[in-house]
């Protein structure tokens, strides 16, 4: 008897338990992440790495946007971003080449890009409001002349939007063309990406970006070059 009375609660528990997931209470900072990737054939190869000494930083930040959309990304912090990237590479014993017209060829080229995206989601909220609509002022079956019955509308749905932003720092190795009349090829050897939710506070967004830029270099110790004699 006891076992029979335990059976149904056990089964109900088994059906409910898999749907229980903890709510970690994440906030905006928790939705940001920093990714770095590198070419192991270059940075894990001492001989290949020894050929890398200098970089040229493209002096503007690319905005990656839909060609049919208006560019609403601010340029107020471009100088700050570029300066931060350059100073980090220099601190890792890279030499910055600022003038390629002087005949000094850099071994790598670095480009900084940003993009933003607005995401739209919809939700149905069938628990918070219950608003049955009986229709026609009468209740009854259609065809009986009572005006019909309409299924109740439980109400509550919504739309939400959130914006995400990404910052890309890409380093390409310049591979000289075998034929002097051809252009050199670019071979990507390092990519740092930060991505996350954007807030309406621009300064807050830039502060987070600065932290993430620093993290890109922190988790890329292989970028460090030996001190030149």
């Amino acid at each position, binding site marked *: 008897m006891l076992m029979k009375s335990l059976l149904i609660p056990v089964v109900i528990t088994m059906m409910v338990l898999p749907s229980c997931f903890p709510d970690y209470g994440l906030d905006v900072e928790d939705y940001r992440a920093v990714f770095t990737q590198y070419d192991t054939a270059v940075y894990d190869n001492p001989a290949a790495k020894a050929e890398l000494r200098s970089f040229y930083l493209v002096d503007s930040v690319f905005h990656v946007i839909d060609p049919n959309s208006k560019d609403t990304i601010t340029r107020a912090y471009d100088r700050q971003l570029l300066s931060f990237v350059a100073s980090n590479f220099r601190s890792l014993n890279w030499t910055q080449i600022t003038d390629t017209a002087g005949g000094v060829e850099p071994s790598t080229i670095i480009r900084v890009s940003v993009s933003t995206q607005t995401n739209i989601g919809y939700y149905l909220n069938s628990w918070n409001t219950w608003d049955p609509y009986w229709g026609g002022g009468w209740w009854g079956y259609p065809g009986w002349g009572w005006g019909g019955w309409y299924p109740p509308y439980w109400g509550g749905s919504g739309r939400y939007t959130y914006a995400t932003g990404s910052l890309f720092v890409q380093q390409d190795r310049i591979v000289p063309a075998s034929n002097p009349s051809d252009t050199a090829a670019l071979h990507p050897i390092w990519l740092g990406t930060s*991505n996350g939710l954007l807030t309406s506070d621009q300064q807050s967004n830039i502060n987070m970006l600065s932290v993430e830029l620093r993290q890109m270099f922190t988790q890329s110790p292989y970028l460090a070059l030996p001190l030149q004699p």
Partner: protein
Amino acid sequence: MSTRRFVSIVLAVTALCMSPLPTLRANNDQWGLTLGYYMAIPVSAMHDFVDRYSWQGLGGEVTYLATESDHIGFAAGWQRFDGLYRDALSEFAGGAVYGTQVRSITAIPLLIKATHTIGDPIQKIRPYLSLGAGAYVVTEVMDVGLYEFSSTNVHLGFMPAVGLNFRLGYRNNLLLQVDYNAALSSGTNVFGRTDNHQNYIGLKALLHFGR
């Protein structure tokens, strides 16, 4: 197939198995059904990924009484481990990812089990030993920022167990069990690990309907 869908199917099959239970009891004394609540502690490499105690687990077993002391059966289960890790850095070949990570591992054991109960069947409390072998379907998920990385693999594995059988009646028992679940490496590189074996200690409370 998603984990939730698989678990729903397992539960539905279990419920279907239970519906003819009274008939089975009347017609065939050898068959039994075990349902239980599972907790678990990750160990070894599993602990390196998620180091939290798991309170989300359940499962069941269809058993056949081979002798008065021996059962064989088919056991299926579901166990979930998860944890939040802030400022976590995960490195893999050729890169790394940093951020707040929500990590989870879901293990679904599908085992053929043999159980030997020690002592006289009329005793109220008897110890038992069992050994299960079969497959573990393991899904590892890492949520970082706005991205989710997931890998599902099938591992060969085994599960030795010890427990106590409390007789509640002629055909009903309460089982308290400790077991060691060892899912061997499937050979897949998961989040930078070439050896993706999963090990955890299970703590189970089960109700057995049958002899």
